[in-house]
């Protein structure tokens, strides 16, 4: 049993205070980072409720339900920002990365408090896999939304498509790491490979 709200409070207060002294892009990044951490907590509440409602055990709920809830929670602020503020492409990807980084950081904090952080190697793998995965999935969503806006096909189905991409990538990762034999290795390598691919795409988007 961990007290996730207390952990959030402890990490968020210094960041909230820092907002008073920050300006511009840095301030926006910290704000998105905070939003990502809050969303992680909310996603955990909703996943917990759905686990009870669906009757799945904790492991299956983490594999099958969490990707759906977490990606939906991450998409909502990005979509809100896109629709209400009509940001530039660069600002949208920055927002997405901030939310993803905050989400991943808070999730990793809670994980370490639950299961310990003794193994350097395991923590490194955890950071490079689950941590990177949250950034990669929300960045993929943001790039999809940018493509949709550029190609003038912004619609409900296109947004659902964006959400389905991030959910499927996240769910694939969860499924692979839950397996045995070579599958966890493939699963752990997947977020890094996705991040490299997305970085390449991000550069291309910035040029054209």
């Amino acid at each position: 049993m961990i007290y996730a709200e207390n952990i959030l409070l402890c990490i968020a207060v210094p960041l909230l205070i820092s907002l008073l002294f920050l300006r511009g892009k840095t301030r926006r990044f910290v704000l998105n980072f905070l939003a990502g951490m809050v969303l992680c907590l909310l996603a955990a509440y909703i996943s917990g409720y759905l686990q009870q409602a669906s009757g799945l055990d904790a492991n299956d709920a983490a594999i099958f339900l969490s990707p759906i809830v977490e990606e939906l929670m991450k998409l909502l602020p990005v979509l809100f920002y896109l629709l209400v503020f009509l940001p530039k492409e660069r600002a949208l990807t920055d927002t997405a990365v901030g939310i993803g980084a905050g989400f991943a950081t808070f999730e990793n904090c809670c994980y370490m408090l639950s299961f310990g952080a003794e193994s350097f190697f395991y923590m490194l793998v955890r950071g490079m896999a689950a941590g990177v995965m949250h950034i990669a999935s929300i960045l993929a969503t943001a790039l999809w939304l940018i493509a949709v806006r550029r190609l003038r096909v912004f619609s409900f189905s296109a947004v659902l498509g964006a959400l389905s991409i991030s959910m499927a990538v996240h769910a694939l990762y969860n499924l692979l790491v839950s397996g045995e034999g070579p599958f966890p290795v493939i699963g752990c390598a997947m977020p890094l490979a996705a991040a490299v691919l997305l970085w390449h795409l991000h550069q291309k988007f910035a040029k054209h």
Partner: protein
Amino acid sequence: MSSELVDLFFTAFHILVMLFVLIFAVRRIVFGERKMKLVYFAFGMTSFLLSDLYWLVYGVVRPGTRMPFAANEIAEWAMFLMFAASLDAAVPKPRRLPPGKMLAAAIFTLGNTLLWIGWSGEWVQDVLTGVCVGYLLCMIVACLAQTGALRKAEWILWGLLCAILLAAQAGTFYGPEELRQPLDTFCYILLFVCLAALFLRALALRKTAFPEKSCSLSFAVFAWTILTMYMSAGMWYNFALAADALSFPMMYTALGREAA
């Protein structure tokens, strides 16, 4: 070869075909042809590809277990909606909505949805899948009517076949015990004969002067393969999956011709 290995082989074939078609579609979009129908088609293919990949990985990681509600279902809903949007963009407007045919499509979808619920017992996901499939079917019917791809007698024939199929499928649930197996076999025969007929009709229209007709029919082939997959099990499912894979190049070439 075990049945699980055969299933994986067919799923891998499906993924490979989708990947090739997606690469062609993306190349076409990147090199200038930014038509909405192709963009939506490529997006829909991406969603379906990831859904299929998830299915494949699930089959490898957890063989022989039933998959609970997962992210791949949402990817399939997105795929249905985006394919409907692609067809909507491919066929010229204003759209004439034939009320009787649309109602028949909606009733057919409702019947299918009730059968899926009967098979799986999963209300929420089957109702949501039904809504997305229903939207695609209504769009296909509207486009078929708009383009005049089917004659009046063909509409009546397809209506009858769909009604017989639903009745026979319902019979496999609620009919007398001794009739269930023959009805099941009859349903498979009907499904695959109709699929073959639709394929041949779409192929015959491939080179007509009215590419939008071919477009509507190739999407109808795709929708029928999906319904066949949802109504099939075992080896029949794999045959339907292979037919579904073949419908992708058909849709892509129809959309491409229209775009040219």
